[in-house]
């Protein structure tokens, strides 16, 4: 164990390959679960706004479960629990096709959908009902009023929490290490085991995570600015 030497890690092709693979898998999990979460969140939102009493209750229960149970426990329940209940054919197919990554995407995506749908809902609720009435008075149908008048304002209001939760989702992708997915934290641990340069590799891992998180935050800030330049200038 010598002194601090960052190059021992960054100039070693084997280690950099492992780190790059880790970054790639982190993004596969992140983008996969983000898309799943957003799709599901929109679906949950539609159920919430439909007149069905039962649907509303079911969505509320879904959100409550996913917000009050630790994400790690949800992942463990999926991978160690629900996975074993699948029919044997499906189990072996999944096991041959990177089951850890698939369950990380499913677990994180379903959990995040609860947060996204609540963000969107509170964003839409902050649009005053007068907007809808005015749009209808001007001859818009319900769908077109929703599309052109209510939704743009609602989504704009929901942007700050959506961005925050997108960053959290990126950070939470590191939880996938517990069910054995080979993402960035896993790569960091592996390089540590091989090189014994704990300080250096943790530093590299931390800087990588920080860089991507700040990138997502920055992209979000840019998006909010584009969505409403006037308000961002005032803030």
């Amino acid at each position, binding site marked *: 164990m010598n002194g601090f030497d960052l190059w021992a890690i960054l100039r070693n092709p084997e280690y950099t390959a492992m780190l790059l693979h880790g970054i790639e898998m982190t993004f596969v999990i992140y983008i996969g679960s983000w898309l799943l979460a957003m799709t599901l969140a929109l679906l949950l939102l539609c159920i919430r706004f439909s007149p069905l009493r039962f649907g509303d209750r079911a969505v509320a229960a879904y959100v409550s479960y996913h917000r009050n*149970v630790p994400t790690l426990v949800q992942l*463990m*329940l999926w991978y160690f629990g629900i996975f074993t209940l699948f029919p044997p054919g499906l189990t072996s197919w999944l096991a041959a096709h990177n089951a850890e990554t698939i369950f990380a995407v499913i677990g994180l995506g379903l959990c995040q959908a609860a947060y996204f749908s609540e963000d969107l809902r509170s964003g839409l609720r902050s649009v005053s009902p007068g907007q809808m009435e005015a749009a209808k008075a001007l001859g818009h149908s319900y769908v077109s009023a929703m599309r052109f008048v209510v939704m743009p304002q609602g989504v704009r209001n929901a942007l700050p*929490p959506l961005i925050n939760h997108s960053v959290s989702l990126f950070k*939470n992708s*590191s939880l996938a290490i517990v069910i054995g997915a080979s993402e960035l934290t896993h790569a960091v641990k592996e390089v540590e085991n091989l090189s014994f340069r704990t*300080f250096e590799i*943790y530093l590299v891992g931390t800087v990588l995570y*920080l860089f991507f*998180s700040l990138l997502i935050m920055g992209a979000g800030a840019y998006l909010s600015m584009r969505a409403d330049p006037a308000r961002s200038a005032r803030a």
Partner: protein
Amino acid sequence: MINDVIAIIQDYWLLLLIGQYPNGPLGGLANTLILSALSIMLAFPVAILLALARLSKWRLLRWPVTALVYITRGVPLLMLILWSYFLVPLWTGADVPSFVTMLTTLVVYQGAFLSEVVRAGIVALGSGQMDAARALGHSSLGAMRFIILPQALYNMIPSIISTFVSTIKDTTLGYVINVPDLTFAASQVNNQLLTQPFQVFLILAVVYYAICWSLTHVANIVERRITRRRAGLSGGAAPVALVPAKIISEQL
């Protein structure tokens, strides 16, 4: 299925509740709650100091703390746990139990998050309070101590409860460094049974749900009461906006 769950609870409730306590370290649910309560208690003074530093007019004080808050917001908790797992024994030179490692991490992490809540609480109070206190002859520190903080902290009680909830959820990550908490106990039960993983982890999820749901419920009740009280104090005016707890507090 239900019978399996009942049988597991009957056989292992003590292990899930207190771990191997009389014969080994305290674990299970008791340890989860102690760890969360301790870390929130220690994180609270840290958070107030960090918030005051971020609001300070000296750059030398403001910049490092801002950097710390951004780092804790941008780096996964898991990475921070690995850092303290590596650094705490190195600095103290002793064999540190994983409980202490986890406690250190959570104090830093939740301290940084709570500091944002405290800061928002102070900013939400408006500058008039400070001006009035200064006009009455308080020093800057005295005004902070006797006028600003008591009001800001009172308004923040709901946010503090929600931070407590997210701390409980964060303690599950101690599983990675073998902190003997509830998650650890459940995986021990699973390793002994081997055949009923779904039932075991279902019990685990239900226990966490019960605790976090009831605490969130308490936070909502307290929030409503505080909003009503503040509305009453300000002569029936529109309720003053509280600190947006749900946006700031971290999810996990």
